[in-house]
């Protein structure tokens, strides 16, 4: 079993430490968060369909960023191949809903489950590589999935497929339902990662990140923890892929398996602040707000995305959230040790 000591104080302070999580700011932040989600939940009664469709894009970014952060920020695995699972999620939804005839809303979690089932054996291959070679290895896997999918006529081979299973639902409702589903998924994913990081797995991951050798000699099963992260991240990216397809009603191999998703995930996480729960959410918001102005830039759009990611990595590696310097903490995962003197 995983054995981790509670944090110890520096020797010789001679006082009893109190270990606690978060603080008053965190409770205030948490309450604010509930309010924000409540407002977002009410939005379909207020805003246009177009806005709802846009916001689903934001929720997908939140999910993708949170998953990539789980991989890289907490698991130390830089993947540039998560589009494999975005694609499987998207195609899974189409296949289940169109060909198998499963209810489309039910198809979304099932597609995510399929991603997890694919990711588990895949991890045995991918984990033979580490660091940068792991990154390219995940990309190769995504390419393989893309090339295989383009051979499958049942999902439109190279030209893609449309999602028509929603056609029984009035568009007004369909858009609102997809919106609520996506909001729900985003909340579940963010809160889920938060809870995951507070669990033993979170402690194990933190230990691995800080010192893999020490962690493994302390009994942390490094590979098992990483594998779990990889599988969870695959399922999460599958959810995002299904959300994207449920939102746009169309799936094409060239776009759903695009490595641009990797670029966007890196951007969202790095800008927001890698290794924090809040960072990717903030990063997704920034990307979402910039998207329109970025879209006007044409090809320069990704130049800016890449350039900003480089600049932030080198100059402000803790990202925007890091600029708050822990003054605000919505999701207290870290321990604070208060020493009374």
């Amino acid at each position: 079993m995983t054995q981790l000591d509670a944090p110890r104080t520096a020797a010789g302070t001679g006082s009893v430490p109190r270990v606690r999580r978060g603080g008053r700011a965190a409770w205030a932040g948490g309450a604010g968060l509930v309010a924000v989600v409540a407002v977002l939940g009410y939005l379909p009664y207020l805003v246009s369909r177009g806005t709802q469709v846009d916001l689903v894009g934001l929720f997908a970014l939140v999910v993708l960023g949170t998953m990539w952060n789980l991989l890289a920020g907490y698991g130390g695995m830089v993947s540039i191949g998560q589009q494999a699972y975005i694609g499987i999620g998207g195609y899974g939804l189409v296949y289940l809903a169109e060909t198998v005839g499963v209810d489309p809303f039910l198809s979304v979690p099932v597609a995510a489950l399929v991603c997890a089932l694919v990711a588990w054996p895949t991890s045995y291959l991918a984990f033979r590589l580490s660091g940068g070679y792991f990154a390219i290895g995940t990309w190769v896997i995504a390419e393989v999935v893309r090339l295989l999918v383009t051979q499958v006529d049942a999902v439109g081979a190279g030209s893609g497929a449309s999602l028509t299973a929603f056609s029984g639902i009035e568009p007004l409702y369909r858009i609102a339902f997809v919106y609520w589903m996506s909001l729900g998924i985003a909340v579940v994913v963010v809160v889920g990662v938060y809870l995951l990081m507070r669990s033993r797995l979170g402690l194990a991951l933190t230990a691995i990140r800080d010192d893999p050798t020490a962690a493994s000699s302390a009994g942390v099963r490094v590979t098992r923890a990483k594998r779990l992260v990889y599988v969870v991240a695959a399922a999460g990216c599958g959810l995002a892929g299904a959300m994207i397809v449920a939102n746009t009603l169309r799936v094409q191999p060239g776009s759903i398996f695009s490595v641009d998703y990797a670029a966007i995930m890196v951007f969202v996480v790095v800008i927001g602040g890698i290794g924090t729960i809040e960072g990717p959410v903030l990063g997704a918001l920034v990307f979402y707000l910039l998207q329109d102005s970025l879209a006007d830039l044409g090809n320069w759009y990704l130049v800016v995305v890449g350039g900003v990611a480089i600049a932030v990595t080198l100059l402000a590696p803790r990202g925007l959230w890091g600029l708050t310097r822990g003054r605000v903490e919505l999701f207290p995962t870290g321990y604070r040790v208060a020493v009374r003197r």
Partner: protein
Amino acid sequence: MSWVNAVVQGVLLGGLYALVAAGLSLVFGVMRIVNLAHGVLAVVAAYGALVLGRALGLHPFLALLLVVPAMAAIGYLLQRGLLDRALRGGELAPLLVTFGLAIVLQNVLLEAFSADNQRLSVGALGTSGVRIADGLSIGWFPLLAALTGVAVIAGLGRFLARTRTGRAMRAASDDPEAARLMGVDDRRIYAVATALALATVAVAGVFLGARSTFDPAAGATTLIFAFEAVVIGGLGSLWGTLAGGIVLGVAQGLGAAVDPAYGVLAGHLVFLAVLAVKPRGLFPSAVTA
């Protein structure tokens, strides 16, 4: 005979893949950086030759005389300006920075040259060859490309084994701090390694651009093929990379002989198979170079 032909062409292609991979291997061997912009940089070199061809009417091989030193200079500055900083920023930073760089370069190329397919013309050399038998001929150009790959790998190997700078590079790779104690400026050595890597990738890019069409997005497959050659061959061995490139080239050739759509996929599958059964590569080396 078409199978034999597929194998022969695959072997020649493998030499070219090894040429692309050599720089990736070198940079990883010396600094433990996987340069995710490596493929795009090959494409940058190809566009460089294209521009020189259009502006000055230079043959791609003559253009190499300008493109190679230019890319080497870019490599030196890239290391000193960006990658050195990234190296000091922990394990993830070099990956994030080089990936960001790949995105930036690819889209700058897209803006400058559009997504149109381009090809470098090497004249008659590109189409002529020697006929060995019915359905089996060896093109001069693929042969030249493969031989260049072998020559570059042999040259790099000699450089690392025999020269003062090469030895310092291996020393800095083993223990940068101890190397500093010997008077080796590890940062300068790293910059030299990146410069060399980009010089070789420039040659590779020009050969790739003359062998088939390319566009700004071609860096992705270039990086992936180079990486597959490295992993199939076994990390840390330049000759292993050559062998890995050949295995990859043959797999792609045979796959394409079955159905043109299967060429690349067959290469990926062989790579995954090697990863599954021989994760240290087919030709692992005891000593890292």
